[in-house]
Structure formats: structure tokens, C-alpha cells
């Protein structure tokens, strides 16, 4: 018997109903349950799902003008299991809107002869955004990054690709790439 509030269903007795200790307990339990819901939301606000993975093994012999998918080998922060070493090129994202940041360091073994390089963010093999950077052909490979918002209405696979243009004997090498992703909104 009794009634309840419209949002969190906090139970209270009808007027005229005989009040007993159960009414107090029910109300306290219901407030507890509501506080649990708010706690869960607070935790999400403080800890929005995120990912940080890295490519520490060079990918070599990449020819000018060809697009190469980055192969990730190290998970620095992967609490939601979006990346799996068994499928190292893809990040499996739930539906949502994400901030994606990819940075290619190219700190060692620099290669001269690169005119341009390009980083792409792909969802299910379709390019969402890309960024091109010019590199002086004599300057060697340059650190390079791309940031973008990505929208997926359904769970999708995200991949990062890299391409370059120029003239390098034996092909170019991509090195030391980091990928960071943070959920902005769930849907």
C-alpha cells in the first residue's frame, strides 16, 4: 500500500494509513537506491571511457602513395577493452561520439625524401577525417598529429592509416604512433 514519488519511486504511506516501521525502512531503502544511481553517474562523469594505445614496432617498406593501416602493439590504458591484441589494427567502439587524437612521433631513423604525409581516421574502412602535412624533402620524417571528433551511431571498428608521398629508396617507415580516444557522449 502507500504511494510513491514519480521519478525515483520513493515510497511513502497514504494519509490515513497506519504508519509502521516498514514505511521508514522502505523510504530509506529507496533513497539508497537513488543514491546508487547518482553515484554510478558521478563515476561516469569523473571517468569517461577512454583508451590509450601505441605502436612501438616500426612498419617498414611502405611505398609512396599507398595507405597503410597502423598496427598497435601496446595498450597503455584500455579499461573498457576497446582494443584487443588478437585484432591489433582495430579499435572496437560502442555507439557514441568520441574525441580521437593520433600522433606519430618519428623520433628515430628519420627518412629524407618525404614531401607529404597523411593520417586518416577510418570507421569500418571509410575515411572520416584526414590531415595532410607538408615535409621539406631534406628534413627527414616529422612528428605529426591529427585530432578529430568521430560519430558512430552503432558499434563500429576504428582504424588509423598513414600514407606518404615522395621518393625514399626501399620505402618509408612509420614509427612510434600513439592513439588516444575519449568518449564525449554516449547515444
Amino acid at each position: 500500500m502507500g504511494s510513491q514519488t514519480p521519478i525515483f519511486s520513493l515510497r511513502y504511506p497514504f494519509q490515513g494509513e497506519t504508519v509502521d516501521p516498514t514505511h521508514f525502512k522502505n523510504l530509506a531503502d529507496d533513497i539508497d537506491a537513488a543514491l546508487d544511481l547518482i553515484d554510478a553517474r558521478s563515476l561516469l562523469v569523473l571517468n569517461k571511457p577512454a583508451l590509450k594505445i601505441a605502436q612501438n614496432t616500426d612498419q617498414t617498406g611502405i611505398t609512396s602513395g599507398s595507405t597503410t593501416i597502423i598496427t598497435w602493439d601496446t595498450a597503455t590504458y584500455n579499461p573498457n577493452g576497446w582494443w584487443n591484441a588478437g585484432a591489433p589494427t582495430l579499435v572496437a567502439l560502442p555507439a557514441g561520439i568520441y574525441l580521437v587524437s593520433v600522433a606519430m612521433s618519428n623520433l628515430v631513423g628519420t627518412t629524407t625524401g618525404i614531401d607529404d604525409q597523411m593520417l586518416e581516421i577510418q570507421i569500418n574502412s571509410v575515411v572520416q577525417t584526414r590531415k595532410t602535412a607538408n615535409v621539406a624533402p631534406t628534413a627527414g620524417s616529422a612528428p605529426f598529429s591529427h585530432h578529430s571528433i568521430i560519430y558512430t551511431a552503432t558499434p563500429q571498428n576504428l582504424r588509423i592509416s598513414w600514407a606518404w608521398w615522395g621518393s625514399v629508396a626501399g620505402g618509408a617507415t612509420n614509427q612510434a604512433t600513439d592513439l588516444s580516444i575519449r568518449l564525449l557522449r554516449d547515444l
Partner: protein
Amino acid sequence: MRFTDPSLLPVPGDQETGATALFLQSFAEQAEEVLAAQYATMAAALNSPLMIMTNSGVINIGSSVSVISTGSSVNVNTDTYRSSNGPATQRRLYRTGLWQLGFYINASCVGTVNVDTYRRGYLRATVNDVLINTQTNEQTFSYTTTEKNNTAQGLSAEALFFIPPETPPGSDGYYAAVSLGLSHGNSGSQMTIAAGGAKLWAFWLSDDDLIREV
């Protein structure tokens, strides 16, 4: 709140039970009000206003002779995503505070590549008075490449943008109008942007009074 043993609670007498029931109802309603406000605040913090737009058709930008000084606008006319409590009008941002703005343009050469001429994508945001629709501030940021033998190049950049709070409080306030542009220096060829090849996004970060906005 922990009630592990209800038998320890005092039981009101028959004369008091009506007042106690009324008290419990009032208590429940007040508790719900506080809980609901907290819940809504968390919901707002989780899902800030956000807008993503793109172009629905192919856009051709003429040769640099006609556009080199001002560039050409890139009409991002399709809502890819817009939050229900977010911007109310396409390419307009109504909430005061700090926004993260970003753009992407994939520009390709229709004809002959002219090596080392420039390609520049830019995002222009202006603050406007809501009531009289007058621009009070402008901020433009851009990303530039030079043309090489690869015809398609991605131009992309992000920046933070501030919309001032309404002054005085309760007045109509300001909105920001945001637009995309592309200019280039190839005098012999048009640039083209395929459908979906341009994007504009805006993500609300914060203001100084979250509760007011809930």
C-alpha cells in the same frame, strides 16, 4: 541511510499516525527534488551540447583568380549529430561558455596540380548579439598545406572559442555563428570537395554556472 532493524524505530501512536504519514510524504518529495537535481546535473555533465555537420553534395571551388582574397564558403548543410539541448539553429551556438571548435576539409584538384601553391581551410566564428543580430567579435583559425603531386589533401584544425555570458543576466545574450571556408592558389584549376568531405564540429566544454543551464 541505513535501517538495518526496523523494530528499533519508535512506532507512532494512533493519534500521531496521520501527521507521520504526512511528514513521510513531504520528506519523500523533498528528497526526490534534491536527488533529481543531482541526477540532472550529472546527466548534463555526461552529455554536453555537441554539434557535427557535414556537406551533403559535391562542392567545387573555382580557380584562385576568383577566390584568392576571400576564399569560398563551404556549405556544411547536413546535421550529422546535434544534441537535443544543444545548438538550436544550424551553424549557430547559443550556449554561453567555452566551446571546442574543429573542422576538416578534404580538398582535391579537379585539373592540373600546381605544385607548391597553397591550400587553406579555415573556420570563422563570430559572436553576435541575439537581439540586434550584430557581430561583436570574430576569431578565425586555419590550416594550410602546399599542393604536391597527391591531389587530395586533408585540412584540419581545432581551437577553443568563448561565447560571453549575457549582460545583464536575463537579457537576450549572444550566439556564435560558425562557418567554414577554403581558399587556394592554383590559378589553373578548381578544387573540389566530395560529399561528406567537409566537417564542422562544436563541443561545449563549460561555463561558470552549470546548475543554471540544467
